[in-house]
């Protein structure tokens, strides 16, 4: 499957003080692949996701994006981050900017596009996530699901090579989860490379090429979704699945 690797982690280790949150993690994500990371809370899956664009630093190991190792803090890192979009659990839309400005800001300041060009592209993307009518509103005036769809549009506006989703639906009401997942499914169908940390097993089953199961800072299983859900190999995964699939 991993014909053309886009994201590669090799022997990645990270500590929070004494706590060894990532232990010898190896992960390869190919171009156009959708990898869903699941696992119990505290297993390090969010941390893993955040190390890929260096929002979290690592103690040892290497991370490469499209063949380039992640640079140190500074302009080179900023440039590389522009190529990897990120969607957060708490949306993190800029509270003092309208929806349209949220999507246009980085296009103008980082990509150097003209304002009218950026706004045109922003409107296209907002249309794509079904929110063109909300362009003039502030984030606080939108529902959680709408905010998260704006956040996805904002990430897409940079034309990233890959998108990272850090529990994108965990802060949403159940009825809003689907509108966000539907946008993500569409992205997956369009061939976007995605790393998705989530608790939505339905999404993992239907949209993922691979499921990565993490526990205690290690990758325990890394397999096709159907195999993983029907016949998990490890006790840890069996235990986890029995707990979450009960209801």
């Amino acid at each position, binding site marked *: 499957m991993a014909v053309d690797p886009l994201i590669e982690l090799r022997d990645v280790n990270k500590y929070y003080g004494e706590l060894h949150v990532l232990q010898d993690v190896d992960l390869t994500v190919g171009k156009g692949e959708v990898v869903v990371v699941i696992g119990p809370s505290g297993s390090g899956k969010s941390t893993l996701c955040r190390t890929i664009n260096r*929002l979290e630093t690592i103690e040892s190991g290497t991370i490469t994006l499209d063949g380039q190792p992640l640079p140190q803090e500074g302009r080179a890192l900023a440039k590389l981050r522009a190529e990897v979009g990120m969607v957060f659990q708490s949306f993190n839309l800029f509270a003092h900017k309208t929806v349209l400005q949220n999507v246009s800001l980085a296009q103008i*300041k980082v990509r150097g596009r003209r304002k009218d060009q950026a706004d045109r592209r922003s409107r296209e993307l907002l249309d794509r996530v079904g929110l063109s009518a909300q362009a003039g509103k502030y984030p*606080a005036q939108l529902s959680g699901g709408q905010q998260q769809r704006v956040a996805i549009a904002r990430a897409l506006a940079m034309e990233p090579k890959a998108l990272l989703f850090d529990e994108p639906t965990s802060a949403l009401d159940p009825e809003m989860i689907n509108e966000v997942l539907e946008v993500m499914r569409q992205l997956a169908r369009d061939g976007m490379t995605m790393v998705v940390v989530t608790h939505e097993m339905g999404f993992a089953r239907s949209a993922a090429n691979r499921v990565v199961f993490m526990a205690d800072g290690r990758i325990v299983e890394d397999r096709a979704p159907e195999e993983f859900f029907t016949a998990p190999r490890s006790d840890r995964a069996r235990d986890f699945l029995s707990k979450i699939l009960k209801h």
Partner: protein
Amino acid sequence: MNVLTDNFHTYAEGFLGTLELTVYSSVLALVLGFLMASFRVAPVGSLRIFGTAWVTVLRNTPLTLLFFAVLLGLPRFGLVLPFKVFAVLALGCYTSAFVCEALRSGINTVPRGQGEAARSLGMTFGQTLQLVILPQAFRSVIPPVGSTLIALAKNSAIAGAFSVTELLGTYRTLSELGYNIVWTFVWIAVGYLIITLAISALFHLMERAWGVAR
């Protein structure tokens, strides 16, 4: 009662003195406070140490001591300036420490995720601070910075003890002329109220225009 009408010129001179001290020191305090707050959140260690030292020294020593240090100390190093300029320096530097901390508390009220989102879009530290963090921090620091500048207006009275013309100092002239001390002070208080209420009103307007919408 006629203390004001008889001595309007003296009062006006004092009032203008206090007003000048307040305005110039406020500008200095805001500029330095902004600079020090940027230092204190900068990714460069030496800048953070400088900012912290600045705030620690100025915020924790009496203003009168700072006046003595500036007015008597600086001339020893060959820096001789009008007393009024020295007074502005002392007041401005002292208040900048408080402005810095108000700004920094504002920066801390901006959720961490805002900065993370900006950085994940490829913005540099400077862009993140300038485009995302400070505009939001600014909204929540309007009230505390207003209070700090009101305190500055009142602190300017200390300059009177160092023979700078300002409002409180007018009482000396007037009591020598034999006017009722109570009424002298009432009109001085009114003078301060005009300045401090004007600052309040200004910051109230700013809060209405740019404050956090809830």
